[in-house]
């Protein structure tokens, strides 16, 4: 095989096949999938994210949450995603059309977060968990994200309404309080917005649970 041009063309042709097959064709097939409107309830799914949650998604990206948490539910009977309660149905491509960066993830050092907004809607829980995961999930290996919080001296007006309720070894020194920063608020807004359980023709939610 000493004929340069043939080699050159062969090299370009082989990669061109998957470039068309796995890049351009999916772009054609999936690039235009739109929202689904339920014919009975007129509900539109997936809805656009509110501004604060949208900014929180940027923090989720920047903090690299995707390296330990997936956002995809595998179909029933394949893995235990549905049995673990990570979703009521598998996720499909339409679930992700509102995401600026799609963060499906490939690692489950921590649990799946596709529906964390549904499974854990309590903002206070999320703040305490981010501040130090040992408070809510003893034995977790998630790193503490204390840098998303300010520790301040309690002012004249008394304890702030948004201060974290912390006890025992996690409590700040006397006279101090722990307040979420703007970033923490946006990140928690995003986490609470994570819900991919709309009833879709291509991925129906099981009837007995949907009722």
């Amino acid at each position, binding site marked *: 095989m000493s004929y340069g041009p043939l080699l050159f063309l062969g090299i370009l042709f082989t990669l061109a096949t998957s470039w068309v097959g796995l*890049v351009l064709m999916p772009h054609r097939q999936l690039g235009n999938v739109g929202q689904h409107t339920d014919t009975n309830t007129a509900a539109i799914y997936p809805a656009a994210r509110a501004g604060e949650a949208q900014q929180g998604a940027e923090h989720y990206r920047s903090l690299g949450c995707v390296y330990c948490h997936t956002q*995809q539910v595998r179909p029933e009977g394949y893995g235990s995603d549905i049995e673990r309660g990570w979703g009521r149905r598998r*996720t*499909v491509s339409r679930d992700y059309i509102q995401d600026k*960066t799609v963060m499906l993830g490939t690692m489950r050092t921590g649990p799946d977060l596709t529906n964390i907004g549904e499974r854990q809607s309590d903002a206070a829980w999320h703040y305490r968990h981010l501040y130090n995961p040992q408070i809510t999930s003893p034995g977790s290996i998630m790193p*503490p994200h204390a*840098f998303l919080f300010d520790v301040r001296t309690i002012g004249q007006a008394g304890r702030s309404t948004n201060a974290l309720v912390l006890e025992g070894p996690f409590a700040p020194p006397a006279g101090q309080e722990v307040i979420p920063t703007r970033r923490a608020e946006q990140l928690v807004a995003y986490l609470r917005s994570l819900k991919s359980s709309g009833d879709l023709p291509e991925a129906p939610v099981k009837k007995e649970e949907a009722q």
Partner: protein
Amino acid sequence: MINQSQTLRALLPGDALTGGGIDGGNKAALAEIDASCRVPVLFFFLSGLAWLLAGTVLALVASIKLHTPGFLAGWEWLTFSNVRTAHLNTVIYGFASQISVGVTIWLMCRLCRIPLVAPGLITVANLFYNLGVTVGVGGILLGDSTAIEWLEMPRYATPILFISYALIAVWTLVTFRLRAERHLYVSQWYLLAAVLWFPWLYGTAQVMLLIEPVRGVVQAAVNWWFAHNVLGLWFTPIGLASIYYFIPKVIGRPIHSYYLSVLGFWSLALFYNWNGMHHLVGGPLPAWMITVSIVASVMMLIPVITVAINHHFTMVGHFGKLKYSPTLRFMVFGAVSYTLASLQGVASAVRSVSEVTHFTHHTIAHAHLGMYAFFTMVMFGAMYYILPRVTQREWPSNALISLHFWGVALGIVLYVVPMSIMGFIQGTMLNDAAVRFLDVVQFTLPWLKLRTLAGLLLAAGHVAFVINVGWLLVRMFEPYRKPVVRILTGEAETVAAGK
């Protein structure tokens, strides 16, 4: 109608035929080519090794953080995610790619039998490259990571790297056009393919994911088409080109079969680039895409087994030489790991196996089996051969060579084997909804500590190698002393001539 000399031309690197030894020829021409490569090759090797040390430190920090989350937890720029991502990007783009380019430059000059052309172009490419990696890794640590695996460097860094890759492709094509040796050896097919494939992959991924992002899960498809092909169409061809060159060269014996090399090359070119979607088995993409990738992954058995047979039968009867040649030792370790990594990859792509191993440390073990036990070992082997030739000096310390080999060989085995087993058990536990998630986390802890230990062995090997390279460079400034001829550590021609 192939006569004896044509057969040999097809099976041996061109410079082995015309550069001395097997049919006589002149060593002066080879020495001239080596000397012309000195500065650019040293640029790429030395900056690559600097990134290796940085990447090793980042790897150790990340590994410790995963079993001791409080470690260095106060600094936001050192979160597990940042350190892990900075590790991947320094070792992939800073270290492995730069060593690849250094090896490619030297191999192309040797195999085309011309002294290095346009050294200025290569130097500019190197400067751009290191600027790109510095800006990119800095951006990741500062929180600008794109969170797209293997493409985490922010949008302001990737075009710098793209320019560098494009310059390298241009340089390779120019060298190829000017070649004095008309016969193309198998290594050249792989090298030419790699330098043409990569800018295409990297350019497509940048445009479709960073500059003008596509919508929804098409991002995931482009992401894994790109990321898997970084391994399959950039590192793998350069690794195989090196094995095809150095094994025959060191043992002084032609490749077992020309036809197997042709089959191996074209089947890799056809199937590898379709593999990427096996990273998304069970994911929210159309079933046809994932099925196509699983089929292509299984088809990879053809190039893998073909290449394994070809390399094995080239080596048969020469395994005794492993004892004397560090190049051969690293190469054979890498070649065997290539087969193992590929077989593990094929198995993990199958739906029923992926159900267990996907989302677990099994994949991390697999990545290190491929990128380290195969590719990095092959690059170490190549550097053991190339560095003495471009510097015209012998390796200063045999003890450091042994420390390097045994440190990294034991280290990577201690990394890959336990982590593969652990990942499998982890996946089985995850798939049993009766097992609490936190119990799965607790199960992984002792294994993760073992990984830190393996990392320390790897780090010791890296330090030994870097000291030896530094010492070699110091020797460049000493007056030249006639090297001790070490039979079998050196050129193939020495072996053949001695017979």
